[in-house]
């Protein structure tokens, strides 16, 4: 097993309204193919940590390395390109582009990467939508989809470029039980195929179903244990 992500001594501060230390010397590593969950109470810094790992927040101390590339201190454009190629991100509040159809939302990162022709990207996008059971809604505008449907489209979008890691920030936090199970099953399925996944959650059931759980409190890692997979 190789290491795909390593975080060393991450420190993060918020300055508004006053200086506040969100993360304190957070270090850990993620193996390829791992399904990792990060749990903790609200405000413990787990989402902040995930944003740092996802390179979307660049104001921190410490070092992040992913897929053999050092990501600390890189330019915005380099990081954007890196995210495009190596990262799939699923937000808590779905965050699709409302004017575009579900299919277009999924296709856009693929078109940006330009690894395949547009035709192939469309086929791949349809395939991803089928995978998550949204193929029937491919042509619908994102703004006309329900929350759970949007979240599933967001997962398909995260998958389009076959990323090194998929990150989810409370990917099921906004969904009802049926949808949560649906999304979780998709993640489990992907993980079993060797996809590396890091998900932040406060759902104990969700966390229990992952390979490993990192527990956080007040910006510190207080627990790190493997889960028995049933």
């Amino acid at each position, binding site marked *: 097993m190789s290491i795909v992500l390593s975080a060393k001594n991450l420190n993060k501060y918020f300055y508004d309204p006053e200086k506040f230390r969100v993360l304190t010397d957070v270090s850990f590593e993620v193996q390829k193919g791992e399904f990792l969950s990060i749990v903790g109470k609200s405000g413990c810094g787990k989402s902040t940590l995930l944003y740092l790992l996802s390179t979307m927040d660049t104001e921190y101390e410490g070092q992040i390395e992913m897929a053999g590339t050092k990501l600390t201190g890189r330019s915005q454009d380099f990081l954007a390109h890196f995210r495009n190629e190596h990262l799939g991100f699923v*937000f808590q509040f779905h965050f699709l*582009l409302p004017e575009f159809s579900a299919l277009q939302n999924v296709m856009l990162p693929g078109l940006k990467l330009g690894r395949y022709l547009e035709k192939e990207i469309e086929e791949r996008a349809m395939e991803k939508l089928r995978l998550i059971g949204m193929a029937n809604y491919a042509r619908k505008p994102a703004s006309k989809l329900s929350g759970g449907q949007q979240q599933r489209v967001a997962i398909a979008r995260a998958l389009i470029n076959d990323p090194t890691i998929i990150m989810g920030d409370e990917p099921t936090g906004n969904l009802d039980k049926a949808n949560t199970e649906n999304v979780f099953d998709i993640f489990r399925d992907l993980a079993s195929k060797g996809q590396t996944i890091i998900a932040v959650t406060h759902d104990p059931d969700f966390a229990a179903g992952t390979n490993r759980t990192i527990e956080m409190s007040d910006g510190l890692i207080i627990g790190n244990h493997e889960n028995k997979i049933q």
Partner: protein
Amino acid sequence: MDIRIASQIAQTHLLAKKRQTLVAMLGVTFGIAMFITMISFMQGVNQFLEDSALDASPHIRMYNEVNTQRPGLIEQLNPGKFNVIYHQKPKDEQSRIKNGMTIAGRIERASGVLGVSPQVATQAFYNNGPIQISGTISGVDIDRENRLYKLTTRLKSGSLNALKTNPDGLIMGAVLADKLNVRTGDKVTVTTPKGGIRTLRVVGTFGFGIGTIDNTKSYGNLSTVQEMLQRDPSYITDIHIKMIDPLMAIPFGKQLRAIYGYYTEDWATANTAILAGEKIRNMLTYVVSFTLLVVAGFGIYNIMNMTVINKIKDIAILKATGFEGRDIIAIFLLQAIFIGVSGGLLGLGIGFGLSYLLSITPFDAGGFISIKTFPVIFEPKYYILGLLFGVVTTVLAGYFPSRKASQVDPVAILRG
């Protein structure tokens, strides 16, 4: 970067919010339409004022200045000595230009000259019954004079041809004719300072819209006026010259003076006050245009800013999924260019329409000014300027906020 994805996203944005796109376009449109209308109208007024003042005067007037001051003979023979002369009379000098017709013909052939009109001008008394009014009469070759001053367009009644067919014809300033209470077809007695009296028939009236001319001046046939002054057919007192480029008149006038030795006066010297007024009006036009453009520019900037801010979440999502700063900028620049160009073109159309409506709006200037509608100028350069300004402002107004948005961490927006 693939411009196709950017343009696809830009197109989707524009089409998804049609009303917002339209409002943004109209913001550009009104700014430019107002600019076009204002500048066309103001320049039209300027042009009209300039034309009505300068069209009535020659670019160069060549004449023989009769100098009443002359040194006494004894002063010339015995300079600097104790000479006493009382009541020295001026010499009887004729204000004729020698070989005037030949000079006129030669000037006419020079390059850059639009037309030359040799003429005899003199003071005169106009009598109609007991009424006697002083004025001037110019004996002209009416075709040449017409070439200089577009008399056909200034005529209020009668025709120029009537003057050619009737040696005793007279085309009179409209105000003067009113004062004398004569109309086309009536007879007027004209007395010259030398005592020559002749009865002439008014065959037309003209109005330049300038009091000093319409009040006093009449045109007669060159030969008739020469006869009235009891002079020979080569007697010419003034040569009026119009150039193709008015600015050429100043050096050309100096040149003529050096060649022929007669006094020349160019339009710039003769119309200093008008030129100063012109400069001030031009300044005013620039100030007003600049103000309009600045106001329009701020309007456009606000709208584009709003367009980008409305899309700030989309920008964060695009960045999160791997779009780079320049992709974001390209997306909004394309939208800005579309809004700028389409709004600008529409603005040109509306500006043209408004200018056209203004130019056909009846305007009662009082019978003596030669316009019936508002003066409006249709100058392509203002349209080009307007479009250029609209597009450049819109593009800048789209560029700065989108560049700013493209530089922030996506999380700073999404966490919002």
